[in-house]
């Protein structure tokens, strides 16, 4: 199945109650698939094409505030527009799932794949001290599985979750195993606006506090939640790290290409491993820190000008050299040039 379509099908099967979106290349197949499939007939899931990404994310806010499983998807310029709403969703502590099928930027940039929205996804993007849980699939299978996982995490922490995909995974055809249809939840969480219950206080969904001390309490509560997320939800994979002297760090589709470069290096006798963060927030900082103690150097490979490299450096904290290799603007790096970068920037460096 095509990545975007598999993801859309996964949303239906995950028991999503609603999807609000707006077309943008390279992710329009998500809403096209949903409209074609008409999940209202299958599960009762509502699908609406909004007038803009801004409207779409605020529809997500409204429906999420009712305790429903809601999703939206877009690509980079559209995600920028959604950032206002994401900040409000994080502030009001609502669960929702966002998908960014990243394309090259800044501005209109290019419709080709990129990973240049890493900072936006993990460092904020919108205003205020907040965090999204960010999942980075490397395969169509993972983007399907992360839809289910994403909803689970979103409700577990009442927090927005983003699947940070890219144009490669969105457009790629790959074999995929779809999970069984999950029923739509009938639960009415006590924080959801579903109509005031007699004898109970009305429910208010808001991100506003008038008193700074009250807002600080909100921030402290959010921070405590993020520490829990960091403790419990880190996911990553390592390859060939047992005997490695050097380490690649790469996420998403870029990790697949880097894996190829690793295999080529191994054939040349270079002992290199790979760590692939599957959660970009929470970041596998401890794992990288530990690995760095026995590495002569680390190369991050990213389809951007150097973003995740900053988090790797923070994790490594000077214990070993960390360099970055990237192609950007929609250009996909080849395994050959990744290997060459390893040899020049790390081994020869």
């Amino acid at each position: 199945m095509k990545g975007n379509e598999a993801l859309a099908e996964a949303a239906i099967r995950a028991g999503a109650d609603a999807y609000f979106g707006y077309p943008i290349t390279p992710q329009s197949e998500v809403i096209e698939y949903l409209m074609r499939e008409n999940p209202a007939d299958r599960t009762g899931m509502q699908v609406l094409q909004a007038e803009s990404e801004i409207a779409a994310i605020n529809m997500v806010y409204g429906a999420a505030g009712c305790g429903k499983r809601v999703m939206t998807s877009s690509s980079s310029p559209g995600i920028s527009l959604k950032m206002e709403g994401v900040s409000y969703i994080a502030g009001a502590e609502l669960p929702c799932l966002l998908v960014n099928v990243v394309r090259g930027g800044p501005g209109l940039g290019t419709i080709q794949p990129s990973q240049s929205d890493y900072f936006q996804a993990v460092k904020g993007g919108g205003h205020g001290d907040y965090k999204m849980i960010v999942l980075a699939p490397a395969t169509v299978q993972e983007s399907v599985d992360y839809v289910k996982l994403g909803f689970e995490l979103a409700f577990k922490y009442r927090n927005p979750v983003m699947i940070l995909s890219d144009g490669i995974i969105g457009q790629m055809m790959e074999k995929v195993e779809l999970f069984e249809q999950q029923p739509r939840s009938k639960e009415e969480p006590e924080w959801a606006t579903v109509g005031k219950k007699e004898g109970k206080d009305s429910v208010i969904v808001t991100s506003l506090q008038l008193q700074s001390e009250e807002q600080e309490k909100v921030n402290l509560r959010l921070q405590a939640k993020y520490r829990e997320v960091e403790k419990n939800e880190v996911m990553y994979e390592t390859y060939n790290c047992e005997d490695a002297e050097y380490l690649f760090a790469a996420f998403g589709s870029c990790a697949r290409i880097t894996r190829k470069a690793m295999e080529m290096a191994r054939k040349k006798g270079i002992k290199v491993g790979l760590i692939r963060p599957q959660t970009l927030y929470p970041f596998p900082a401890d794992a990288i820190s530990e690995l760095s103690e026995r590495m002569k150097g680390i190369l991050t490979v990213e389809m951007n000008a150097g973003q995740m490299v900053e988090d790797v450096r923070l994790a490594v904290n000077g214990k070993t050299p960390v360099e970055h290799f990237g192609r950007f603007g929609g250009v996909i790096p080849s395994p050959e040039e990744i290997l060459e970068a390893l040899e020049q920037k790390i081994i020869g460096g």
Partner: protein
Amino acid sequence: MSENTIKTPENLVYEKTSVMTDRVLHYCPGCGHGTAHRMLAEAIDELGIQGDTIGVAPVGCSVLAYYYFDVDMQEAAHGRAPAVATGIKRVLPEKYVFTYQGDGDLAAIGTAETIHACNRGENILVVFINNGIYGMTGGQMAPTTLEGMKSSTSPRGRDVKTMGNPLKITELVAQLPGTYFVTRQSVHTPANVRKTKKALKKALEYQKLNKGTCFVEVVANCPSGWKMTPVQSNKWMEENMFPYYPLGDIKVPEK
């Protein structure tokens, strides 16, 4: 009958509806928001739909509307209330959903959300408070500020050549096939207050029919923003606002 025996429960003819909380409203003295709130709350009360109503508060003076309405409410980002209400109504189609928005929220930053929610005919009630000024941020020009009207960002009066014209968004949404009932009212005299409540009640009743968006504008005063006493501001509103924003039904359901 002596006065003391008049104040008995069976003689009670008017008290604050329980759909409004007991909080002291933060609005300035004489501001129409409080009365508009109360009329909407009374309409909800009389229809017996308090437990089935979900409101959306805007950004602006009425940002804290959820303190005063004793119904479940969501606070939207500036201008986005119709989109938030759309999200709510699409997943809870049996509930009564309303937005309560000022002129900056509804007719400037949220114009797209307003127009498109009305154009889709979302089965929601949009309550639009038009006082021709940005009250909360300290009296700046609004999209509905009248020509020549002074504000802190039009200190010499609104010059329509450079600042644009006062926007009659209510007439505009009435043109859209998605709207079912569009009316303009006020809350400055007892008769007008009663008409406003009637309109709000009708709009909520229509919501059950799934016929489209109901849009109730309330032309209101802003004594602080206009720099007048409340009584003066109501007079000024009659003399200046009503000629440009005439009261009455703009679109009524076909019989």
